[in-house]
C-alpha cells in the first residue's frame, strides 16, 4: 500500500472507505460525527446541523475517491461540513452573528476592584484531576447543562479545539474566524466552566 500521502493507521481506514466497506463507515461515523456536528452547530440550528452532517456522510461515499490525504481525514470532513453550512447560510441570506468584543466574562470582571486587583478572589483550589472529577455524576451533569447553555460559537470552538484537538489554524479555517477571535471564544467558554466548577465545589449546587 502507498503510505506516502497518508500515515497509518488512518491510511487503512481511508482505503477501506474508498472500497465502500460498511464496517469502516460505521467506525468513521462514530469517530468523526461528533466533531462534524460541532462544526455545523457553529453555523446552523440543531436540526439543520444534524441534517447537514447526515447529508455530508452520503456525499463522502463518492467524494472519498478523490481524497488525496493532503490534510487529515478529520480536517477534510470538517471542511466539507463547514462549506455546506456556508452555502446553506448564503442561500438563506444569513450570517453567523458573534460578539468578539470582550474576552473577560462579565461575572469574573465584577470580581476585580477599580485598581484591577482581586476583590473576590478564587477561594478553593481544584485539587482533583479531571478524570477523578468526572467520576462525580452530579458534576458531569452540571457540565452538560452549562456546555449546552454556552453560545453555539463558543461551544463549537471549544469542542473543536479541546475535544477534537484541532490546531488553532485548522479551527480558524473551518469556522472562518481569525486567530484573535478564536482566542476570545475559547477564553470566554473556559471562564464559564471555571465559574461553574467553582460554584459547584463551594456550594455543591449546579
Amino acid at each position, binding site marked *: 500500500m502507498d503510505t506516502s500521502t497518508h500515515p497509518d493507521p488512518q491510511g487503512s481506514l481511508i482505503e477501506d472507505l474508498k472500497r465502500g466497506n460498511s464496517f469502516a463507515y460505521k467506525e468513521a461515523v462514530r469517530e468523526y460525527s461528533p466533531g462534524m456536528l460541532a462544526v455545523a452547530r457553529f453555523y446552523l440550528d440543531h436540526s439543520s446541523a444534524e441534517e447537514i452532517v447526515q447529508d455530508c456522510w452520503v456525499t463522502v*461515499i463518492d467524494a472519498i475517491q478523490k481524497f488525496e490525504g493532503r490534510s487529515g481525514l478529520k480536517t477534510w470532513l470538517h471542511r466539507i461540513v463547514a462549506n455546506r453550512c456556508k452555502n446553506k447560510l448564503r442561500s438563506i441570506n444569513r450570517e453567523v452573528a458573534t460578539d468578539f468584543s470582550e474576552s473577560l466574562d462579565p461575572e469574573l470582571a465584577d470580581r*476585580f476592584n477599580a485598581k484591577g486587583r482581586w476583590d473576590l478572589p478564587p477561594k478553593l483550589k481544584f485539587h482533583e484531576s479531571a478524570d477523578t472529577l468526572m467520576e462525580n455524576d452530579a458534576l458531569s451533569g452540571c457540565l452538560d447543562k452549562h456546555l449546552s447553555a454556552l453560545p453555539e460559537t463558543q461551544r463549537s470552538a471549544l469542542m473543536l479545539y479541546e*475535544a477534537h484537538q484541532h490546531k488553532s489554524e485548522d479551527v480558524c479555517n473551518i469556522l472562518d474566524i481569525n486567530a484573535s477571535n478564536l482566542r476570545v471564544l475559547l477564553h470566554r467558554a473556559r471562564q464559564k466552566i*471555571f465559574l461553574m466548577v467553582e460554584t459547584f465545589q463551594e456550594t455543591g449546587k449546579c
Partner: protein
Amino acid sequence: MLMCRDLADIASDYIDGELTNRQNLSVKMHLMMCKHCRTFIGNLRASTDLLKVHASRQENEELIRKIDERVAEALGARKSESDGCK
C-alpha cells in the same frame, strides 16, 4: 505593571502558550507575587482539562444511528448500480 484583571484577561493564552516572551515573563513575575492569581490560573487550567475529558466523552447515539442507516442505504444503492454495470 500587569494587574490581576489583566492576567485574568490573557489567562487562556498563557495556558496555551500563545503569549509573546515578554508577556509570558510578566505573567510569571506576577504569579510569583500573587497567590490569588496562582489559584486562578491553576483552577482555570483544571477547568480546561475537565472540559477536554468531558467534551471528548460526549456522543450522540441517535444521530449516529440515523447516519449509519443513510450510509448503509447509499452504499447499497451504489453496489446495485455497479452490479448492474457488470
